[in-house]
């Protein structure tokens, strides 16, 4: 396990040269953007004055050029920064991943496939907009793992009634589980019990979309999660008392909504994030240790799931 001091040393030796080079690139892009921004602003002012002259009132005609300008600016910023982001990920993030564990492989533009995402059975809605990046895979101890950032959305309706709903946004992690099992178990955040108390349990047992409700003994675990599965005994074989305690500790560590599922002798963990992970800053300097620390901690959280859930303890028939 690498400590923050190790990271600081690594930052000063291995990373600073690359960071400085990238910072120079970032500044160059910012310069270009400033010129373009000023040019667009001048254009917008001229257009607004022209429109005001013709129409005489402020709304709604003035909105269109303003919105158009913002969209154009964002599009250009995105285009210019593509190379910079790619280079940042291939050098800095790649180095941090190898620093944490030599055996891990990082592929910036890959992500967990949609079929695997659906196979976890955590999210029942099939997303029609699906993208992700920052794919990491490799063996942590005895456990084969892979994870990536995902953004899955469901868009419904058309034209004016189009609405977009987020199915899942955040870190999606898959690992080999340390026990053999054939049934399925899904662990979801417990919203009903929070809202309705003990009646919540009754409502949860009526959920026909999801197998049978499994009521477990750990009261803290039950407070945070609701479990569905197809076999009462197998679900308890998977969710031993110690694993339940570990899941609760992990949940407290992240303080974010987490979802787990156990399917096909593998464990899937989905951690919801609102921010975009592993993206370099464009509008502000990247020469801060705190930024590298954030990348490190996010990666460490994902890779640490193996230890947090004790997946390297292989005392049963699966090795």
């Amino acid at each position, binding site marked *: 396990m690498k400590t923050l001091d190790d990271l600081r040393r690594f930052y000063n030796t291995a990373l600073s040269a690359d960071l400085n080079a990238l910072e120079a690139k970032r500044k160059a892009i910012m310069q270009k953007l400033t010129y373009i921004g000023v040019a667009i602003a001048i254009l917008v002012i001229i257009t607004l004055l022209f429109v005001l002259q013709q129409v005489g009132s402020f709304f709604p005609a003035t909105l269109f050029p303003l919105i158009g300008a913002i969209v154009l600016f964002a599009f250009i910023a995105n285009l210019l920064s593509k190379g910079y982001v790619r280079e940042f990920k291939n050098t800095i993030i790649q180095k941090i991943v190898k620093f944490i564990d030599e055996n891990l492989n990082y592929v910036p533009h890959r992500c967990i496939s949609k079929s695997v995402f659906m196979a976890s059975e955590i999210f029942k809605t099939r997303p029609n907009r699906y993208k992700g990046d920052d794919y990491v895979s490799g063996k942590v101890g005895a456990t084969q793992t892979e994870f990536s950032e995902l953004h899955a959305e469901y868009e419904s309706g058309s034209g004016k009634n189009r609405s977009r709903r987020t199915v899942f946004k955040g870190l999606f992690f898959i690992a080999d589980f340390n*026990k*053999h099992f054939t049934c399925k178990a899904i662990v979801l955040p417990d919203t009903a019990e929070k809202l309705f108390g003990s009646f919540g349990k009754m409502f949860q047992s009526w959920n026909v979309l999801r197998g049978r409700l499994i*009521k*477990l*003994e750990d009261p803290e675990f039950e407070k945070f999660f609701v479990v569905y599965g197809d076999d*009462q*005994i*197998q679900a*308890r*074989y998977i969710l*031993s008392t110690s694993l339940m305690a570990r899941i609760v500790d992990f949940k407290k560590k992240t303080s974010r909504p987490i979802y787990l599922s156990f399917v096909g002798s593998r464990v899937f963990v989905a951690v919801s994030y609102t921010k975009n992970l592993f993206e370099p800053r464009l509008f502000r300097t990247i020469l801060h240790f705190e930024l590298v620390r954030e990348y490190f901690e996010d990666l460490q959280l994902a890779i640490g799931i193996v230890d947090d859930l004790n997946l390297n303890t292989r*005392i*049963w*028939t699966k090795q």
Partner: protein
Amino acid sequence: MYIAIMIIAALLLIPILIYNSLVGRKNQVLNVFGTIDALLKKRYDLIPNLVATVKGYMRHERTLLAEVTEMRAKAISDRTSDDEKVELDNKVTKILSRIMLAVENYPDLKAGENFMHLQRTLTELEEQISAARRAYNAAVTDYNNAVEMFPTNVVASIMNYKRRKFFEISEKERESVDAGKSFSA
């Protein structure tokens, strides 16, 4: 007129639903109990294999091995009563853990492939049995809740359904395995 019929129909339906849910819960208890029985039998089937594997090495533990073989014979025989079987099962659990502890004395045996495979299978089986016992307690809790809470307790008393007991560890079993005793056997 229609409202009256609907009310009567609802009133008739409710006891039927309660009756069915009670029967369902009782059957779930019996179902899980049956699975525990099956898992225990699997464990008994492992014992001859275990004894054969360790016999050659563990010359000092002959009495332990003889004891466990005898217990197994009794447990699978038809002539022992159900209560005796439960007691035997508890005893066998204790003896197995003593044997596993004694193996620590024999590094050759401990590292042997046969034994390691057996150990993993046994650990997995013990974990499955523990999961089954937890499932049994959950099923019994559900059943007891229905038998004692209102309004299902009304129908339960008519059906003469009584509260059931949980799977409990006896006081004797709660004392941890004494390592000293194991090595002197």
